[in-house]
């Protein structure tokens, strides 16, 4: 029997994936897609929003998703889970949620960009829609890794049509090749957690185009692995950075 630093049994861990969407089929899908990334002993649970958008494709969608995301993260902590993942590459509500809990809250974009910077000199994000390109540059600036971001390219397939895997993979490979050849990317980060589970097939696609030296990060799976690592270490965000929000009257929440 091995033990985590906080004294809990390392063989049992609970991670909650908060899917910032009201689309019901995403719950079962999330469970199916995230479970293979978890190690034996890690229990994944998925929760959707009660209020909010069907998918996040704009700043407005983010704004209307965030209040319920925070609520779901707070609920997860009350349920005794060890770490939470906000399952969207916009990292919506990440910092607000950290103010309200002490368990690790993982943002797939933040995590992927930092790990990408550890693994390569420059990386590109291949995202869903062109309209979100500025947001990713902003994220990279905030994290201090802007000069490592070679480019942000888009497959231009709406989130709710990502179920067409063949079309998505073809577009991901196409844009990744362009990112490598034209933008100088040394690593590709898949830019939407809705494209989970495709890293290996995209890597194979790149190899098929003669590019054998470019790793592909699947941010959803990476988020699970980093959540496990932090929970093992009993490590979470600094409450000095993310101070608990002061109590006051708030109407409607």
């Amino acid at each position, binding site marked *: 029997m*091995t*033990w*985590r*630093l906080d004294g809990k049994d*390392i*063989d049992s861990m609970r991670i909650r994936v908060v899917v910032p969407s009201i689309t019901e089929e995403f719950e079962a899908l999330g469970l199916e897609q995230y479970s293979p*990334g978890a*190690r*034996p*002993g890690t229990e994944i649970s998925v929760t959707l929003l009660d209020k909010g958008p069907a998918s996040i494709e704009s700043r407005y969608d983010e704004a209307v998703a965030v209040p319920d995301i925070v609520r779901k993260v707070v609920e997860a902590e009350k349920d005794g889970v060890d770490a939470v993942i906000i399952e969207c590459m916009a990292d919506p509500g990440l910092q607000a949620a950290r103010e309200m809990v002490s368990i690790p809250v993982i943002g797939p974009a*933040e*995590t992927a960009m*930092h*790990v990408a*910077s*550890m*693994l*390569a*000199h*420059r990386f590109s994000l291949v995202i869903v829609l062109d309209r979100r390109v500025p947001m990713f540059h902003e994220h990279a600036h905030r*994290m*201090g*890794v*802007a*000069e*490592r971001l070679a480019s942000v390219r888009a497959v231009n397939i709406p989130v709710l049509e990502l179920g067409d895997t063949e079309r998505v993979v073809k577009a991901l490979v196409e844009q990744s090749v362009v990112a*490598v050849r034209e933008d100088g990317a*040394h*690593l590709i980060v898949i830019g939407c957690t809705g494209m989970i589970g495709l890293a*290996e097939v995209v890597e194979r696609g790149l190899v098929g185009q003669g590019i*054998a*030296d*470019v*790793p592909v*990060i*699947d941010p959803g*799976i*990476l988020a699970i*692995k*980093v959540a*496990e*690592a*932090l929970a*093992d*270490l*009993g*490590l*979470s*965000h*600094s*409450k*000095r*950075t993310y*101070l608990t929000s002061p109590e006051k009257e708030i109407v409607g929440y």
Partner: protein
Amino acid sequence: MKIRVIEPVISKTLEGTSLEELSPIARPDTELSAVSLDAGPASIESTYEAALAAPHVVAKIVEAQKDGVDAVISNCMDDPGVEAAREWVSIPVIGPAETSMHIATMLGHRFSIIGVLEADERPFQDHARKAGLEDRLASVRAINIPVLELEDRTKAVRALVEQSVKAVQEDGAHVIIFGCTGMAGMAQDVENGLREQGITDVPVIDPAKLAFKIAEALADMGLSHSKRTYPTPPEKEIVGY
């Protein structure tokens, strides 16, 4: 999964220390090994000593890949030989400094590194600058205890708490990173020490342990460094290695 810790020093005792500190947090399916160098310094406390260690660290990492190891750690906060080794192997090579700084940036607005000697400031600032995280580095402080004297844990913890408190109160640190992997296993004690001083909101990163968990995570995903960033060196005559 096989993870190997490369102790970039000739002292064999560190192998045992790593196994002792890391085994309790290893996943049940992780097979952990530790090796020290055949040639090199007794400890790394200068850029010179890191330079002497690097060729032998690379050799041990190449050997690890041949042995079928899934990920390796160069177990020193100067990340000796990490980038050179990445050029030679395709398995993940983890540098505790690089890893700690990136994760610290995810966990807090600003971090301080508490190293062993005052001379650590320059290399840590250089590492932070290279990682692009310079403006997140609140300060580098030193406990002024040589690496080989860290075995006196009570003394080390006391000094770490003292400097961590200053880093928080005077330099504005929100996260503390230990500046030496020889401080492995002291994070809990230092967090307790901070709490006794009324500081309950500052996580303490133990880079040796973090590097190990991130090694497991990357190996799990089959994710490693980009060989486009770290291409294999050209073949040529090299004497003595």
